[in-house]
């Protein structure tokens, strides 16, 4: 059940406003406030109770299953989890590196593609078509196939200086795919800025580039930040896919440990670590979205 939005406590009137301080609230208003408080408390209790009930039922159903003891031993063994943690953590460090490097490259490449698609005029038609084709292609291909094509195809070319490290190739594949998505997010943002803004900027004599940089993009960024953060959360777990190229990341380490111990707990550990990684970004995305909403709406009840 959705939590009711808590009423912000009324700030104390520190300065006496013009016209004198307000008289004390009437009994009617006090009773209304009391009623709202009771309502809020009741909603919270109902939400809490229903959550606890659900958790209890889920717990009972799972633990009473006939296979539960076996599942518990093979998936949730504390000792295996503790032993596997250091190796999985060192693997996660590789994922983090891919995430940071890849994330930055995705932002740059995605923005470039979006700006190319936003170019006007027939002279830029080839560029636009190229950018559109790129987006269509890499948004359409499953990431894992891009990873195989890049990870095994590029080295097979045997070109001088072609990197062979799965770290580099995996990052390239992820950047190719995610840039296509992020380019579309940026493009949506650019198009969401009202044409009148462009008209105002161009009539001040700003060039297309200046208009984009100074007027359109700052407004577009504000609109798309929540969507970008959402893509970032998706990227955080997809970096685990570089394991298919043989990079020893968190997923791959877990796989190796599973093979050694015949116990699946390392997968659960790796999964939990990815969740821990994603939670702060998810909360940040929530906060940014809420802030954008507050800024765009001038209060009121609805």
């Amino acid at each position: 059940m959705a939590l009711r939005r808590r009423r912000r406590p009324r700030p104390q009137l520190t300065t006496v406003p013009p016209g004198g301080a307000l008289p004390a609230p009437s009994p009617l208003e006090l009773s209304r406030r009391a009623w709202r408080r009771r309502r809020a408390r009741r909603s919270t209790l109902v939400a809490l109770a229903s959550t606890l009930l659900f958790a209890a039922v889920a717990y009972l159903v799972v633990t009473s299953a006939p296979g539960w003891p076996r599942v518990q031993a093979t998936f949730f063994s504390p000792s295996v989890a503790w032993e596997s943690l250091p190796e999985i953590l060192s693997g996660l460090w590789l994922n983090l590196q891919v995430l940071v490097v890849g994330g930055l490259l995705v932002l740059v490449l995605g923005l470039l593609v979006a700006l190319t698609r936003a170019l006007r005029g027939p002279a830029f038609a080839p560029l636009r078509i190229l950018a559109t084709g790129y987006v269509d292609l890499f948004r359409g291909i499953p990431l894992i196939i891009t990873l195989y094509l890049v990870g095994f195809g590029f080295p097979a070319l045997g070109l001088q200086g072609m990197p062979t490290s799965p770290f580099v190739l995996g990052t390239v594949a992820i950047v190719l795919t995610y840039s296509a998505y992020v380019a579309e997010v940026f493009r949506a943002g650019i198009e969401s800025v009202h044409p009148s803004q462009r008209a105002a900027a161009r009539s001040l004599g700003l060039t297309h580039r200046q208009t984009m940089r100074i007027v359109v993009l700052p407004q577009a960024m504000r609109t798309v930040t929540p969507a970008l953060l959402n893509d970032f959360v998706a990227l955080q777990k997809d970096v685990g896919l570089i394991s298919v190229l043989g990079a020893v990341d968190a997923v791959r380490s877990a796989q190796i440990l599973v093979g050694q111990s015949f116990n699946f707990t390392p997968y659960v550990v790796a999964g939990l670590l990815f969740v821990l990684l994603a939670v702060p970004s998810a909360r940040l995305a929530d906060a940014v979205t809420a802030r954008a909403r507050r800024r765009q709406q001038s209060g009121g009840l609805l």
Partner: protein
Amino acid sequence: MSAPVLDVRGVVKTFGDTVVLRGVDLSVGEHQVVALIGGSGSGKSTLLRCASLLETVDDGQVLLDGEDVTDPRVDADAVRRRLGVVFQAYNLFPHMTVLDNVTLAPTVVHGRPKAEVQEEARAMLARMGLADKAGEYPDRLSGGQQQRVAIARALGVRPRVLLLDEITSALDPELVGEVLAVVREVAAQGMTILMATHEMGFARQVADTVAFLDGGVVLESGPPEQVLGDPVEERTRRFLARVIDAGRL
């Protein structure tokens, strides 16, 4: 006079440290037109937003047909169904045609048959001189046309009272007349209206009562000839002098 349709009693509204309304009393009787005047920031819009339950009041009551609609126990949606609101910036739905804007609430909210509502809406649009605009999208209309559509939309639900929030403030002077003509006709048909306005001439012609909002209270109210022609309060006098200077009376 019978019981008022809309009765505002001691309404207080604050935003943080700013006290906008500090005890407003105002009543609008059946078939009455009440004009709210006052400087910008005097709380006219806030009062209308409180009356249409778009804001919660911090004290006092708003009664609609004798029912306390500021009681948190009332179903606010059910109350709003009985109100018609027209905003300063039209607030038409840009993704719907004019006809769909007008027929939305009667069909979706009130569940009336679509054919009947459409016929009624077309007739209303025709009366407002918009017969040929029913299929257009709002962005293709002038401000005056859009505002007339907004009035038609508000009237579509057959409201008990029509709340008009400075509906001509965003319009070119030459478009003001066409919108005011529509309001005049709606008033003549007996609609109960509470309007915030800067058009003193219009208030004088159409309103039964003019209320001057200042410092968060209704400082002075009465028949238009009295409040606009021979105000008792010094502040009302000064406000009107400023308006005359600006050439709006």
